[in-house]
């Protein structure tokens, strides 16, 4: 079958394929769809080919939470083998194979970046999803991203070695450096976004439960504790009253306006002008990690610590929070770390170093 014939087949059977995508499995499908392996028989049902689903999800920005992040184990292994063969024989075939593998890994980085981004968007779009499920899904993605960070670190080391082997490898890698750096930077952004999402969702879940509890108590008239709170803090809560019939008249009227204007004028005459509050937030700066002496930080960690991020924040050579977070992202790929399920006051997962 040619590519154009496949496209025609997709169009001809579009309704069945759409049903297969939406319903997950079908009792029967036409033979051509089985022959082209677009549908695979699983037990007595027919399911769409996983590769087709992945493509559609990617194209429609609908990656689900079970997104497969994948690793680079095979490509990494092949690169090491072919690099060694090239060094030993200087044959052009091995040289080309290494360049092809670099490009394969680049594409994997690219697709994975899109997948994680789509997974996060998808999480945040679930406005009527159960919060327990959302929190669980977000934690799963976070765990997978952690694995990605480890894989990235391994690939980065191999690429550094490749640059010193051959000028052509260096040239190809130098051209891709900016993009690789962008993907790595995105990972720290995704971790940050996920951590924030998890914290916010946990807070919302707690609040929603309080709302449900309180409204149940209101309905069953077991709410004297709310009456007490409202009465205790009523002086700050009077805004609900309006100048309608039978309602509390504690709001100002037109007659108060001249008084307000006079007060404002006299206040301005008496008071020195305050400095204008600075409302512009500082733009986070991305620091180059290689300028930081990671070795000395790792050496200083030999006695261990209970919260890596806070340790870094307090470290003499770490300048600010951005730098601490970048180093944190780098260090969590080391085997010495173990992750707790809880987060510190900076919304960063508590990570022990042993």
């Amino acid at each position: 079958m040619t590519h154009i014939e496949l496209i025609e087949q997709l169009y001809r059977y579009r309704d069945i394929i759409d049903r297969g995508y939406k319903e997950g499995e079908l009792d029967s499908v036409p033979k051509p769809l089985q022959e082209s392996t677009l549908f695979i028989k699983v037990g007595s049902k027919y399911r769409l080919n996983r590769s087709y689903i992945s493509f559609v999800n990617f194209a429609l920005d609908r990656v689900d939470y079970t997104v497969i992040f994948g690793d680079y184990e095979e490509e990494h292994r092949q690169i090491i083998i072919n690099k060694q063969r090239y060094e030993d024989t200087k044959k052009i075939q091995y040289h080309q194979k290494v360049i092809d593998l670099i490009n394969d890994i680049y594409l994997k980085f690219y697709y994975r970046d899109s997948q994680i981004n789509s997974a996060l968007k998808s999480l945040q779009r679930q406005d009527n999803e159960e919060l327990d499920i959302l929190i669980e899904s977000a934690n799963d993605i976070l765990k997978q991203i952690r694995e990605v960070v480890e894989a990235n670190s391994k690939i980065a080391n191999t690429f550094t070695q490749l640059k010193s082997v051959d000028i052509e490898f260096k040239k190809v890698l130098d051209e891709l450096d900016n993009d690789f750096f962008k993907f790595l930077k995105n990972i720290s952004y995704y971790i940050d976004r996920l951590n924030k999402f998890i914290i916010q969702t946990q807070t919302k879940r707690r609040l929603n439960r309080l709302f449900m509890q309180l409204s149940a108590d209101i309905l069953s008239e077991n709410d004297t504790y709310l009456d007490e709170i409202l009465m205790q803090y009523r002086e700050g809560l009077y805004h609900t009253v309006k100048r309608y019939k039978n309602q509390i008249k504690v709001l100002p009227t037109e007659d108060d306006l001249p008084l307000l204007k006079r007060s404002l004028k006299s206040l301005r005459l008496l008071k020195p002008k305050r400095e204008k509050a600075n409302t512009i937030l500082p733009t986070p700066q991305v620091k180059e990690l290689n300028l930081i002496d990671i070795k000395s930080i790792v050496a200083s960690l030999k006695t261990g610590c209970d919260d890596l991020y806070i340790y870094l924040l307090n470290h003499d050579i770490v300048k600010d929070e951005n730098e601490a977070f970048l180093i944190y992202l780098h260090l969590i790929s080391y085997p010495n770390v173990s992750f707790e399920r809880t987060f510190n006051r900076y919304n960063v997962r508590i990570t022990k170093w042993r």
Partner: protein
Amino acid sequence: MEMMIKSFEVLMKGIIVSISSSKYREIAHFLSIEEHFEELDDTVQKIGYRLIGENGYYYLAKTGRLDKEEITNFVSSHKRIIVAISIIKQIYPLISPNDTIKQTSFTIEFNKKEDETLLDKMEWLFGDIDRKKEIEELFKLLEKNYILEKFDINDKDSYRVLNAVNYYVKIVESAF
């Protein structure tokens, strides 16, 4: 000075000004500047009021004695809005200020839920009326109390969630 008076004129009507409101955004932004907030607060204190503001919303408060009927109104109004927000949260658990809710989508989700507690709350709030009317009344109640705001004058279906919802979040948190 003009903006200060304009802010006061709006707040004196008992309006909670939210930063996510398209109607009162300008005032909320003005008051979000510490210097402006403090100046208006200092001024209204001189004539017996207090400017309260946090989490993107602002309103005027006044100390004073309340009679029995006033207390009943004050407490009951808060309870009704807490129950109304809890209905919204049951349908949209992730709802936040600035989000948009469509009344039609809300109705579909509400009907899908088949949750007895939702029906009990609606009945407690609005008595025994039909479903469509109940949901209209719910949106009306929240709009009147500055929790929701019509997205556009020509769009009768879409509402924006205002920061004033955080005022009730704070009360609910304090209650436990």
